[in-house]
């Protein structure tokens, strides 16, 4: 199943059949965990961890390894990608997004920290809480800068790794703490929330949409080639409905992203990404696409990153768009 020849062909049909096989094996593995006393040792014995499943070329290590031989130590970069074994059950992450604009006599800076904490209740199950904030500072309002809370999102993730494949799926719910009262301050608040959504290219816009709550579900699959080159596909959908203030109606949102991971050296990964968000039916343009380039540095203290998001098309980007962008700096969740 994990032969180098089939992976090398990398055809779509091959990948799909491989994915199906992996999913089936995962299901079998989970069933066997659920009923350990009844399992058939012959049928449900999970596949052993092999060099091939770790993305290691067969020439580097004997395949299959001798049963009594010590497990080979894979390269550090492959370990970081394929088998992210957490040393703790609790992990924290944070992203500081920023954007700004200058006009004669003023400079406005929008800062948006997104804090995240995750707890592993099971090797494959994470409980995650993410909560963002917005802070607008400009020299027209020194001493009275504008600060608003986003919508905290609680998510339960299931994740699994099998060979070169990594899967993650989750469902969540947000609390409608982002709020814009209709008042003379409303323009400042709307500006802040809208700028924050723009810095993310509308990705996960339900984290910032005022007076609404959401039920998001998300899925991500990654495939790692030997040498650490990896491809990821990410999709999320959410039902978003107005619950406060003037927000009314129910909308269904979708978003997809493609990401490539280029390892450079032992600990640095360059990650170009393309994402598209299907916005609410009330939106003028239904799609917002953006390009992201993120550099990730793996250290002993965690995985840190810096990146830049450029909106590509209207309404936030493009020649006639609003030319919004976002700079992102932070530390990723590592569980």
């Amino acid at each position, binding site marked *: 199943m994990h032969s180098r020849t089939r992976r090398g062909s990398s055809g779509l049909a091959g990948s799909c059949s491989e994915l199906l096989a992996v999913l089936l094996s995962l299901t079998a593995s989970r069933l066997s965990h659920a009923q350990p006393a009844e399992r058939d040792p012959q049928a449900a014995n999970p596949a052993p961890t092999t060099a091939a499943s770790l993305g290691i070329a067969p020439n580097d290590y004997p395949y299959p390894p001798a049963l009594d031989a010590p497990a080979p130590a894979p390269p550090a970069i492959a370990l970081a990608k394929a088998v992210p074994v957490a040393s703790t059950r609790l992990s924290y992450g944070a992203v500081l997004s920023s954007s700004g604009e200058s006009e004669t006599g003023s400079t406005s800076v929008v800062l948006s920290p997104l804090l995240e904490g995750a707890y592993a209740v099971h090797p494959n199950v994470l409980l995650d809480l993410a909560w963002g904030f917005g802070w607008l500072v400009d020299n027209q309002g020194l001493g009275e800068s504008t600060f608003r809370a986003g919508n905290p999102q609680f998510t339960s993730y299931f994740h699994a790794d099998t060979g070169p494949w990594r899967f993650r799926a989750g469902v969540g719910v947000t609390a409608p703490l982002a709020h814009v009262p209709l008042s003379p301050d409303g323009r400042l608040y709307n500006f802040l929330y809208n700028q924050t959504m723009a810095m993310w290219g509308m990705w996960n816009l339900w984290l910032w949409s005022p007076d609404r709550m959401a039920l998001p579900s998300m899925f991500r699959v990654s495939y790692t080639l030997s040498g650490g080159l990896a491809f990821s596909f990410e999709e999320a959908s959410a039902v978003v409905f107005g619950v406060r203030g003037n927000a009314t109606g129910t909308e269904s949102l979708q978003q997809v992203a493609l990401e490539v991971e280029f390892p450079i050296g032992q600990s640095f990964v360059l990650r170009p990404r393309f994402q598209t968000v299907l916005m609410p039916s009330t939106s003028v343009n239904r799609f*917002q696409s953006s390009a992201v380039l993120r550099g990730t540095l793996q250290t002993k203290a965690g995985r840190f990153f810096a990146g830049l998001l450029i909106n590509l*098309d209207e309404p936030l980007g493009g020649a006639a768009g609003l030319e919004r962008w976002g700079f992102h700096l932070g530390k990723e969740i590592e569980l």
Partner: protein
Amino acid sequence: MRREHRFAVSCLGLSLLASGIACSQPKLAVCDITQRACQQAVYYHDLSLRGDAYDPFDGLPPVTVITENEYRAQLEQAAATAAQSGPSPWDEAMVLLHFTTNNSSASASADGGTNNDGGTGNATIDDEATHTYAFYDSTQKNVTIISHPSQTGSEVEENAMITLAHELIHSLQDVELNLQKSDFQTSDQYFAYDSIIEGDARFYETLFANDLLDLGYTQSNIIQAADSALNDYYTSLGDFQSSMFAARALVYPLGAKYEATAYHSGGNAAVRHGYAKEPHQMVGFLVGPDGRVPTVTSGEVSPVPCVSSLPTSGDTTGADQFGALLFYTFLRGWGVAHDVAFATAQTWTGDFLLVQASADYATTAVAWRIEFSAPPPTVIVQALSATGELKVSASGQALVITVSDSATPLAWTADPACP
């Protein structure tokens, strides 16, 4: 391995190329606002001018296109509904003070609806049906465009685009401010609130027109542009049908100047903060070319005289604070020159207007006390007293004006028991 790299790079490149093609949009050009693409272009340009990002839930509002005849029918229906309302002592009071004439009294209410016409006759309706390009309805949250097939040419299209830009600013405001706010304590508060709403729309409408028509406005000369527009209003104030209508028209350029002043100092960021610190009295908007902003006070004044023989409570009496703008247009309506009227209005610190009427509305009496930070010029007293209709007394830094339609003289009293 190399093949995989090429595949990944190719995918990414194709995606970026596709997005790049998708995002290439034409620049702002003259277009027909009844067409969706034109509406969208105007909307995006508004967003860009205002420095806002994009609200995906409350974007371009629904737009309906109707014919001139359909719009005329709507106006006639509204006029018929308005005509059904019963008599109000305020209508007669406004006529007595020359804020309105009998012809335009149906639209005299200072805090009335958003339809700021100067009358409700057929001529007015015809004029409005012919010259209105679009309007925003905050209750329905939609924009209505009136198509004028008989009007052709790029100038018509340009004017229509500029109007649509103005109306779409209102749709943006509708998720920031309460456009349906009605709990105003005074007419002065209402006018001040309206100034920030219409002034904001007028200001960005001006920037839109600047981009469309290459008018040459920049951040450095935008105040001069606002002053120029205001001067046009001040000069042509006599053309308005009434002082009340003139005041309602002046909130547009006065609010626009307030925003232009902020924009000049710090662009859209300053406008956003200026928006949040809007003056709650019209005196705060009466800024002349010298840039001096009048002091906004509590607006409280001493009691006004009243007629003890008329009811002091119920439907036939009422009180209000008209504020500096209505006082200015009132003076202009009585023939006071702009410079004197404007300078005096800038010294306004408060006013109180009391209207009393008999139960059968046969007799109406009005008392209006206006206080200033400096004694009002005597030419004002002379102008107001010239026809003998008004009784005007100046006392220190206050003016007291009384008027009634009673055939016999009324006994005015300073009895504090009056409301």
